[in-house]
């Protein structure tokens, strides 16, 4: 078991948003977490990544045998958790390659791998950039600054490729993407998918799942998972709408 979330209650500013969430993810699996606005999808991503504004009220999260909630955000990242942001942050004055090399080398320090100097890293980065069809001219530019919405999302997947996490949480990575950008991002994720890692796709729409086929679909409503199934559940949801599961949640 790579990730086990048990009876998680969490929220922001004294407002409880997750109300007893359970989730198990194994290596090699792709899970989609779907749900209407306000269901707690983004809260789950942020709690797993360790955002300081979110508080855990009760419950536990075990990642790769460790108590994830006891780790700082940077420790989680070095242990192998990665979150692709819905709104990637711009970091003016810091070049993409500088930033990525620092992050890569910190991870290598932690895992006992080999650190790379700027020239070596540049070669490594060029290879990884092909995965998301990103031009090397982006390496020298400040992180996300002046990037279009699609370029920012591609940059997130490039970071995922560079850091090779055990668990990647893609928080609404499909939002704001046109069809070409969505295809590039999704193909990038598919290339990074392996038997050793797991991916959690957090999304409102089924559209992304046409490109990245999940093994499991979980439907979140009112801070809990109310329905689970295979990839066909996403299609059913698309057809019937979220009111269908809201009804199920009320009935249960």
């Amino acid at each position, binding site marked *: 078991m790579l990730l086990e979330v048990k009876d998680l209650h969490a929220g922001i500013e004294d407002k409880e948003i997750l109300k007893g969430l359970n989730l198990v993810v194994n290596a090699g699996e792709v899970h989609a977490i779907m749900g209407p606005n306000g269901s707690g999808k983004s809260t789950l991503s942020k709690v797993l*990544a*360790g*955002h*300081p504004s979110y508080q855990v009220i009760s419950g536990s999260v075990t990642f790769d045998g460790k108590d994830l909630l006891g780790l*700082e*955000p*940077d420790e*989680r*990242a*070095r242990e192998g958790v*990665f*979150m692709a*942001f819905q709104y*990637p*942050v*711009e*970091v*003016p*004055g*810091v070049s993409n390659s*500088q*930033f990525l090399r*620092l*992050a890569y080398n*910190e*991870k290598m320090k*932690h895992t006992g791998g080999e650190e790379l100097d700027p020239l070596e890293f540049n070669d490594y980065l060029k290879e990884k950039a092909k995965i998301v069809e990103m031009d090397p001219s982006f390496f020298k530019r*400040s992180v996300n600054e002046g990037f279009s919405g699609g370029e920012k999302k591609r940059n997130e997947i490039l*970071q995922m490729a560079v*850091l090779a996490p055990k668990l990647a949480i893609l928080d609404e990575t499909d939002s704001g993407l046109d069809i070409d950008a969505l295809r590039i991002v999704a193909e990038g994720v598919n290339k990074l998918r392996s038997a050793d890692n797991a991916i959690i796709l957090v999304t409102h729409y089924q559209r992304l799942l046409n490109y990245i086929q999940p093994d499991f679909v979980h439907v979140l409503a009112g801070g809990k998972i109310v329905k689970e199934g295979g990839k066909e559940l996403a299609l059913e949801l698309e057809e019937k709408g979220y009111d269908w599961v809201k009804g199920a949640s009320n009935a249960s």
Partner: protein
Amino acid sequence: MSTTALQVDTAFADEFRSLIELEPDPEIKVARERGYKAFAELGLPTPRLEDWKYTDVRTVGGRQWAVGSSSSDLVDAHLLNQFSAERNGFTALNQAFGAYRVVRIDADESLPKPIELHFEAVDGEAIFPHVIVLAGAGCKATIVETYSARAAAFTNSAVQVFVAENANITHYRVQRDSADAVNYGVTEVLLGRGSRYDSTNINLGAALSRHDIDLKFTAEGGEALVDGLYMLGGTQHHDTHSIIDHMVPNCTSHQSYKGVLNDKSRGVFNGKVFVRENASGTDAQQSNKNLLLSNDARVDTKPQLEIFNDDVKCAHGATVGQLEEEELFYLLTRGLPENLARNLLTYGFAEEIVNKIGIESIKAELDATVLNRLNAKI
């Protein structure tokens, strides 16, 4: 006049007498006498003056300085007269002791190499460089002005830049005096029709420093970028006062100043932008952003726009704060330890200005200095 000013007055009096007796050039002699007279009246500025409220220069008056060479090029009287010696006690003193140098760039000439102005005062020395740059019509050139006093020295400089019609001047000013030094400098710029002036002012050194900038658009179509960085630690004090004067229509000025303040350092930014009554079509943007890295650091910022015309595009703003929490969280989620993440963000904040410098050797050196200040390897 305060006792401090009197003390300095007498300290420089002997030096001035021997200088003026030997001055060979009658026109410079007149200018020196005028400057000294103004200094005798003004004295050194005191914090009682509004423009010097936060900047106390008593350390300058508190000791005896050995005045460096004042030998000068020949200068036309009308150029000497254009300098605002009466601006304050420092500019008056510069006029009196100035080592005048004239740099001419011919019309339509494009200089392949930068003009280098380097000033390095030694311990106990007071130097008064005064450079007049005459940039001919349609010329293109880069000025690199650097200060690196080696110890407790006093640099009092003046640079006048006359940018003729359609000339294009890039001006880098880097002040990295020793942490014991005092540095005062004024930059006066007059911009002609359709000319362009792009400046980057980096203030890293000195115990006490102040840079006054006075830029005037004298004909339409001028464009100016006036950017800067002050990065301070210990008990350093830096003050930038700038005046950008849109006297005529259809000129553009963009000013971005940033401050990074650590320990008990203190920064002052005062930026005035005037848009005169007839200056329609003006585009003036001004911003001053400060990052405080310690609870004991302090900055006083005052961006001011004074607009006397409606047909303009103007904006200004100032911020004082800590690092953005969302930016920090983003870097943490990529596995950077908090200390490194903070350093990287601070570095990025400063680099936005340093990156403007188009000369690789200077930029690399400043990069290294910024990192060294942060005690970081990036």
